[in-house]
């Protein structure tokens, strides 16, 4: 198969968004890229090691709180607070991963969910540190390397590209995949907290985990760009739908059912099938 240089092309395209689009599109692109990073991190687990985490938002939340607290309370610059999100989320993933991966593969799905709900409860109740349900409002946005939303796009994309390199090598090491997936989810969370200008307990809530899981499945698990496609599709859909209905989880669940019964390979899987069919037709013609 010919190799198309997708990574540089995608990077150039992403860099062009702020130049070509309006402020609104830059905002949307930011949202998409952060979620794409989050979904790609989950795909490290699902796609490459076959482990489906139902509590991936835990690491997203840890990353968001880490960056948010370090920037707001410790007044650290972004350049220090952002990597810390990945490191701490990775450390927690290591701690939980020992239980989830090593000991009991059969319990994996429910342990990931249980640990995430545990962290959510802690974020909700530990008011002194996390601010409870009020969260951490007004995370400063002006620190180093954060001129505007436009800078987040190439940076996050840089990490998305980095995951691709690592992702290939971790195939066989489940715990390593778990830790890396957690660390990158933490980075996504760190970015999202700043982008959102606030960090709240529901960053770690199970509905966030389900959103990222469905993005990954919608795009196509196991394919590298699948989660990015899924993130793009789901965020655009969300923006259309939330103006009509508040029942977003219902829509998400229905999408998931449709995927399971109709397109198990997701959008990427469907595209591959269509492509193969088109090529077959061309050849036979």
């Amino acid at each position, binding site marked *: 198969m010919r190799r198309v240089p997708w990574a540089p092309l995608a990077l150039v395209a992403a860099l062009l968004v702020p130049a070509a689009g309006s402020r609104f599109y830059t905002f949307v692109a930011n949202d998409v890229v952060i979620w794409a990073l989050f979904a790609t991190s989950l795909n490290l687990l699902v796609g490459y090691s*076959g482990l489906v985490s139902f509590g991936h938002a835990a690491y997203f939340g840890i990353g968001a709180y880490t960056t948010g607290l370090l920037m707001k309370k410790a007044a650290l610059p972004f350049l220090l607070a952002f990597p810390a999100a990945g490191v701490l989320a990775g450390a927690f993933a290591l701690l939980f991963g020992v239980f989830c991966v090593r000991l009991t593969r*059969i*319990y994996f799905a429910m342990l990931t*969910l249980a640990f995430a709900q545990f962290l959510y*409860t802690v974020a909700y109740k530990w008011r002194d540190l996390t601010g409870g349900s009020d969260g951490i409002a007004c995370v400063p946005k002006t620190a180093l390397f954060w001129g505007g939303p436009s800078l987040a796009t190439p940076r996050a994309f840089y990490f998305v590209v980095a995951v691709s390199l690592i992702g290939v090598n971790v195939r066989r090491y489940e715990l390593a995949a778990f830790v890396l997936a957690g660390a990158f989810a933490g980075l996504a969370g760190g970015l999202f907290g700043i982008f959102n200008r606030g960090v709240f307990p529901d960053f770690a809530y199970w509905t966030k985990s389900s959103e990222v899981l469905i993005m990954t499945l919608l795009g196509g698990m196991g394919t590298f760009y699948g989660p990015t496609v899924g993130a793009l599709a789901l965020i655009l859909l969300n923006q259309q739908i939330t103006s009509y209905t508040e029942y977003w*989880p*219902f829509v998400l669940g229905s999408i998931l*059912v449709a995927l399971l*019964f109709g397109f198990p390979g997701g959008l990427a899987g469907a595209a591959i099938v269509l492509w193969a069919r088109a090529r077959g037709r061309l050849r036979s013609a």
Partner: protein
Amino acid sequence: MPDPSFVFAQSISGLTAAMFLFLIASGLSLIFGVLRVLNFAHGTFYMLGAYAAYQLVQWLGVGPGRFWLAALGAAAAVAALGGLIERVLFRHLYGKEELYQLLFTYALVLVLSDSAKMVWGTQQKSVSRPPELTGSFSVFGATIPSYNLLILLLGPAIALAFWFVLQRTRVGRFIRAAALDRETLGALGVNVSALYTWVFVLASFLGGLGGALISPMRATTPGMDTEVIVEAFVVVVIGGLGSFWGTFLGALIYGQVLSFGILLFPRFSIFAVFALMAAVLIVRPWGLLGRPLR
């Protein structure tokens, strides 16, 4: 040293919680035992049981015996829903990967809990205690509502009835056989497909009944489904997934640790439960009374 009546009251409240956890977790364990699938939607069936009980109480009104009628009706309605979902949708996924079945039950959580929100809104709903049980008893200086006392009697009774169904009835024998070897059971001429539906009906009934019975004690709110499914998971992890008495033991331990954990970590009693679960996973990853799988 806390005073004895306080300790007594705490242990009773732990026991009451354990009875509910057992009802929920045993249904979860049953479906896992036979179908080898973790049913994420089981907590949602519990929540629907609570909402259905609220709705039926609204329709039937308050009066002697009415609550029990509503609770049974709610459990039956949830059981019917569980059976219907298995018949119409879930069975088409049996031939596919386990992951798809798991994801399907997860999709059910999203769809059903949002549907409940559409019907009953986000405001919490409360059901008043049945009029014959509004009083309370004073035991060892602790005040225990008579409804809670009844739950303490009802819990073991339901556990025994369930155990009896599994051990002594024809369906129960088939269910236990299916947990061990479903191919052979099918080859022996048992209608395995119908059996799966019955397993779903029975498990959903237990979940719905748990929700209906808890509705006079705790407010029914959206989000109670994920809360309880996580609790039920922890119970089966501690006790051993697929083990009947393990689930019972796990629920008893969970209840006590939760109600006495409050003394150690006032705001984070859940931490004590998770510490216990972690300890069990290190020492006996298959649970206290479970068997190592594969």
